């Protein structure tokens, strides 16, 4: 059992936090391809990213997951580590050439730039191996660390202040 300390009550993961990288990219190949092949490629990509993160020193894989959108349907794939394997599901109504892929890699123990490098290398290598070109449309690195300095009362005060404004999103 872990030794109790004040840090244990402080909320989010304060020390190393969780480093992440997410990317939205367009993938294209010359020949049409079916869902079984895309699922296999997506699983291979997830495992390759996880392996790269481990090689760079990640102590734990939070998740590596992707969502593939096509004109014929969607596929998702994910892994929590190479030893656990990868999982995919979804189906396409017909073979396709163009994919839109969102990938999110969240790991602990390495900086976000390392997660980005691990993700991009694996993504490009696996995609190219399967005959796809990759065009990055959007990307973001992030690090989720908790503010260890503020107390629960501080956070409540901040929430109340923020909630006093009367501006609401209108996108529903």
């Amino acid at each position, binding site marked *: *059992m872990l030794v109790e300390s004040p840090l244990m009550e402080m909320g*989010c993961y304060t020390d190393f936090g969780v480093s992440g990288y997410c990317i*939205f990219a367009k993938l294209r190949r010359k020949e049409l391809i079916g869902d079984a092949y895309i699922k296999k490629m997506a699983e291979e990509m997830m495992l390759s990213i996880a392996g790269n993160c481990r090689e760079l020193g990640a102590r*734990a894989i939070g998740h590596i997951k992707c969502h593939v959108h096509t004109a014929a349907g969607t596929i998702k794939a994910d892994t*929590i580590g190479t030893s656990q394997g990868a999982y995919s599901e979804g189906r396409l109504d017909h073979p396709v050439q163009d994919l839109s892929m969102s*990938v999110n890699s969240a790991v602990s123990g390495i900086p976000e730039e390392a997660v980005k490098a691990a993700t991009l290398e694996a993504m490009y290598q696996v995609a190219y191996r399967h005959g796809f070109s990759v065009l990055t449309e959007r*990307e973001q690195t*992030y690090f989720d660390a908790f503010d260890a300095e503020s107390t629960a009362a501080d956070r409540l005060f901040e929430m109340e202040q923020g909630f006093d404004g009367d501006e*609401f999103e209108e996108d529903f």
Partner: protein
Amino acid sequence: MMKVTQIGGFLGCGKTSAMLKLSRAVAEDGKRKVALVVNEIGEIPVDGKIIEESGMQVKDIGGGCICCDVAVQFGKVLVMLYRNFKPDHILVEPTGVAIPHQVKTAAKMGMRDAKVTVGQAIVLFDATRPAELLDMDMLGRLVVNQVKDADILAISKVDAVDDAARQEIAKRLREYNERAEIVYLSSFTGEGIDRLKEIILSGPE
């Protein structure tokens, strides 16, 4: 009255799959109105897109954690859902690093402008990697905090482990949390979904 229930737990524990199963179970073919709030740290959604395909009313909050960074935005989203959609239930998937009691606090901010009750915090724990989650220094501290904060501990992916492993994990979790009900959950086989549905539908915390 709109009831807000969080389905929390560390990254990769199966929150999204559980949310999909639970939302369908709670909605029960249109008997109840259910909305989903999905929180991802990154700004490019993956879980949100997956859940959108369920056909449920979904709001994706990105760019930070609803238990701290974007807590105010979360509270406002609850009020917006109340005003515009009037769901009976909102199921919330926080990020994998969120602390359950802070998510509850943020949800309670919505009570100022909407008729909201906050349900029990359901926290998933991945049965396939207990040592990886609990025995590492800082990561272990985060996961232990999540476990301690749970009102309901759902040991997830139990279809992938044997009975002895289930019992061992339950015993370990009991060391950190003596009061939470423990539910064995498999989004793959459906085990535990009915019990979690009952918990979500039962009275406030």
